[in-house]
């Protein structure tokens, strides 16, 4: 076929002005293409919440000096990994002064602020931002190729040479395009969060930080028997506390999400940090948790998918990242789309560069490397037996039971392993799996 390229309203439609969509829009608009960025909320970020830390170094190339202007709450200088049982806790607490200076490492930020700011850069680059517009479906030509989206605006349909689905964790567009087989509950966790207000000085004092320094506490245990995890993050004058809950387990345990947060808040390791504050906002969101094993097909004729819509969220226990994966996959999707538009080939084959870009960078390399992590971290032994084992071993190490002499560590380990109901070969197997996963 040698037909002239058909007329389209714009070069590219990006659905969703979150971190993936805005970075895609920046890349495409700067390459000189006509871009429409659709956002179903009244402003970018209005539908978005998360656990709370963003790692923005991928912006070095898109927005040099981003740290001088990004709407950050606090720069993470203290990172705690905490194991909780009902009556004890153990933390590995790391503090790093270098993380308080450019280029920084992680930051807490409110997503409505952060996403709004990032979408502003997309607009400055020349993208047209259309808020309060829900994409309700795909437009396709006779051959099945994606040629635009339906919207709920009065003027309805919008056509383009390429559509970028950055429409978030539920991504109805990539499901409609057949990129997802079937969304299964076991691949998702529910994040629920309370944002609790305090005077800044109280937060500084309780968490041992100053100025813009902030704390990130990631918690294993404390989720009331539901597989998942907890978190506490400091913002400037609020503290975010919440839990991430594996969906099928949440349903099976018959405990409501807000009750599980209340349980975490009442724990003796958490309560002194957050008591007395005023609840500012309660919110919830789904997380595509299963990583590598749930990744969809990333392209089809006329369409790319990025960010949470492509399940590119890293939930690997000690690493919990998503916004950076969204920004990076969005940027690479935008660059690939720009190349494809220039060549006049936005077919699936013409978009092959997207997966190559992702595969050669952290986006797919981290996911591939950590592909076994989500299952291991959310397994029953790691979730329920190992926290008990670790804390009881430490308890017996440090408990002085005079006149009894100190028991040897080997004996403590053997006894506590039995008491926690962990078989030696499972411990060895999980240890080996941990090394293979994280090593």
């Amino acid at each position, binding site marked *: 076929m040698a037909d002239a390229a058909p007329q389209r309203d714009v070069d590219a439609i990006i659905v969703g002005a979150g971190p993936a969509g805005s970075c895609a829009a920046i890349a495409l608009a700067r390459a000189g293409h006509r871009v429409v960025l659709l956002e*179903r*909320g*009244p*402003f970018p*970020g*209005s*539908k*978005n*919440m998360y656990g709370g830390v963003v790692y923005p170094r991928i912006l070095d190339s898109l927005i040099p000096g981003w740290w001088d202007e990004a*709407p950050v709450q606090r720069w993470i200088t203290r990172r705690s990994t905490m194991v909780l049982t009902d009556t004890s806790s153990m933390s590995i607490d790391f503090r790093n002064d270098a993380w308080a200076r450019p280029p920084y490492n992680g930051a807490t930020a*409110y*997503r*409505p*602020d952060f996403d*709004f700011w990032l979408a502003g850069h997309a607009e400055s680059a020349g993208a047209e931002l259309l*808020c*309060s*517009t*829900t994409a*309700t479906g795909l437009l396709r030509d006779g051959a099945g190729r994606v040629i635009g989206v339906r*919207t*709920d*605006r009065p003027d309805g349909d919008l056509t383009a040479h390429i559509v970028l689905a950055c429409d978030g*964790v*539920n991504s*109805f567009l990539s499901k409609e395009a057949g990129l997802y087989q079937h*969304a*299964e*509950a076991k691949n*998702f966790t*529910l994040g*629920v969060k309370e944002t609790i207000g305090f005077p800044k000085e109280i937060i500084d004092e309780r968490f041992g930080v100053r100025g813009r320094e902030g704390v990130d506490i990631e918690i294993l245990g404390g989720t009331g028997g539901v597989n998942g995890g907890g978190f506490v993050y400091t913002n400037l004058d609020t503290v975010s506390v919440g839990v991430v809950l594996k*969906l*099928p387990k*949440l*349903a099976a*345990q*018959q*405990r*409501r*999400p*807000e009750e599980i947060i*209340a349980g975490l*808040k*009442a724990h003796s390791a958490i*309560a002194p940090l957050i*008591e*007395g504050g*005023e*609840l*500012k*906002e*309660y*919110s*919830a*969101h*789904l997380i595509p948790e299963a990583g590598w094993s749930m990744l969809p097909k990333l392209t089809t004729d006329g369409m790319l998918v990025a960010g949470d819509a492509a399940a590119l969220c890293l939930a690997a226990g000690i690493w919990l990242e998503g916004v950076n994966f969204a920004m990076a996959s969005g940027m690479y999707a935008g660059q690939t789309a720009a190349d494809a538009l220039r060549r006049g080939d936005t077919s699936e084959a013409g978009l092959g560069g997207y997966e190559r870009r992702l595969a050669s960078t952290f986006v797919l390399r981290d996911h591939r490397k950590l592909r076994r992590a989500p299952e291991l971290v959310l397994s029953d032994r790691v979730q329920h037996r190992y926290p008990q084992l670790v804390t009881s071993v430490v308890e017996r190490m440090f408990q002085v039971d005079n006149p009894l002499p100190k028991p040897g560590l080997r004996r403590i380990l053997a006894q506590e392993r039995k008491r926690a109901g962990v078989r030696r070969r499972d411990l060895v197997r999980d240890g080996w799996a941990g090394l293979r996963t994280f090593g």
Partner: protein
Amino acid sequence: MSRDHDPPVAPVEERWPAISFQERMDTATFDVHERAHIVVDGAVCRDCSTRDCVVACPANLFVPTSDGGIVFNYEQCFECGTCYLVCNREGAISWSYPEGGHGVIFRRT
């Protein structure tokens, strides 16, 4: 030191201001559209014994009725997607996003 000499710790309800679920939900902002974006077919729910949506919905919008059905209130929905994922009854939940500009609005500072 015996437990008798431990400083008393106030019960949980005294350490945080008591807050009802409705007050909790009122901390979020919703621009409610007249059309319900999620529709629950109570007839399908009637013979469901697990009722996973009732437990899992973070906004507690699924309310069992005395006659064995389920009433769903769409107004204060976070649009998270939990309900349709945990639901194991084909056709019980019809899920879509609200009209553009409507639904939950997380605040800017």
